[in-house]
C-alpha cells in the first residue's frame, strides 16, 4: 500500500476509501463489544484467588449446606481453599 502513488487516484476516491475503512472498523468494534458482553453474561471470568489459584463456586445444594450447619467457619474456609 505504501508504494502506491496517490497521483493515480482522485480526492473522491481516496475520501471514499477512508469512509469505507472507518465503516468497517465501526462494524468490527460493534461486533467486538457485543461478543464481549455476550460472553461475559454466558461465561463469567473465574475469579483468581490471592495465591493465583483459580476457583469458582459453581453451585451449592441444600444437602451440602445442611451438612455444614453448626460447623466451624474454619471448615468452610478450608473447603473453599
Amino acid at each position, binding site marked *: *500500500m*505504501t*508504494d*502506491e*502513488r*496517490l*497521483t493515480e*487516484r*482522485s*480526492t473522491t476516491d*481516496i*475520501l471514499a*476509501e*477512508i469512509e469505507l*475503512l*472507518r465503516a468497517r*472498523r*465501526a462494524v468490527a*468494534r460493534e461486533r*467486538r*463489544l457485543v461478543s464481549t458482553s455476550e460472553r461475559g453474561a454466558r461465561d463469567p471470568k473465574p475469579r483468581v484467588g490471592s495465591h493465583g489459584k483459580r476457583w469458582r463456586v459453581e453451585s451449592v445444594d441444600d444437602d451440602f449446606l445442611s451438612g455444614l450447619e453448626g460447623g466451624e467457619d474454619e471448615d468452610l474456609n478450608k473447603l473453599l481453599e
Partner: protein
Amino acid sequence: MTLPQIVPIDHAVKEDVLFIDFSTYSTYSMCKEKDRLAHILHLRPVIEEKPLSYGHAIHAGIAELRRKGDIDAAVQAYVQDLIDAGSSLPISIEDDERRSVERGEALIRAYAQRWHGEPYEVYRGSDGEPYCEIGFAMYFMDWHGRPVMLAGRMDWIARSTIDQRAYQFDLKTTTSNVPQQLKQVRPNHQFTIYTLAAKTILSLDLAGSYMDVVYISDRKPAVKGGPWMQLGVDIDKDFGRQPTHRSATDIDEMMFDLIETTRERLTWQDRLESGEISRWPRNAPGACFQYGGCRYLDICSTNCNPNIIATNYVIKPWLPWQELVKKEV
C-alpha cells in the same frame, strides 16, 4: 537601524537580487554544507520526504479552512495537495507509517472543532482578500551593490473579535509532544521576521503571534472512548497554541543576527563562485542525525560522489519571487 523598505517585486527580479529566507538562514546556521546542497545546488531527494509533503498538505487544508470556513473544502484541499505532490503515503491509519491520509483528514476536522468559536477571524484586505498564505519579500541589505531581500510566507493573520487587533498565526506540525514544541516561541527569528513583514508590507502592528501546533501522533483508533479517539485523534492533546510578542528591540536584535549571518554566508558564496573552494564546511555529526537524519547523508558520507548525486537527487530551484510575481499579477 533603518527599517527595511518595500521593493516592488518586478523591480527586484530585474535587478537580479539575492534572496534569503528563514529556512536558508537556519539551514546555514546548522550546517553550511547542507545549506550549499539545498540552496546553492538546489538538490532535492528523489524519494518522497514524508514529513515535508505531509506538513505541506496539512497546511494547505487548514489554509483553505481559513479562506472559506468550509471543512469539506479544507479536507479536499489537503488530499489534493498530497495528490499533486505525487505522495505515496498510506491511506489507512492502521499502517505503521504515522503520516497516513486518514489521520490527516481526521486532524483537519478535529482542528476545526477544537478551535471553533475562537475569538479570531481571518483578516481581510480592503479588497476583501483574506490574509492567508501571504508571500513577502523586503529589502534589508546590500551585498557588493546587489540588493539582498528577505523572503518568506506567513500562514495567516487574524483579527481578534475582542480587541480588534491583528495577530499572526504560524502552523507547525510536529511528532514531538505539543508542550515541548510550544516552548520554542522565544527566541525564534521566524516570528520576529513575520512581525517585521506585517509592519513593512501590510502596515499592520501585530499585537502578537501564535504558534499553532498540530501533533502527528502514532495513535491507533481506540475501541472505546469518544468519537475523536475512535478516529485516532485526542482533540485536547493533539492541538495547542502559544502566544508570543515581539518588541522593536527584538526586531533590531534579530536584524543584527540576520545581517551578520547573511554577510558571512555571502562571503562563503563568493569564495565558492570564484573557485577558491569547492564546498562549504560540514557540521558533522552535529547536524547529520537530527530529526531522523539529514537528507544529504549519502552525499556527505560518500564525499560528494557525483553518481550518488545524479541517482538520488533532482535539481529543483528555489525561486520565491516567481510565486510572488504571480500573486502580484
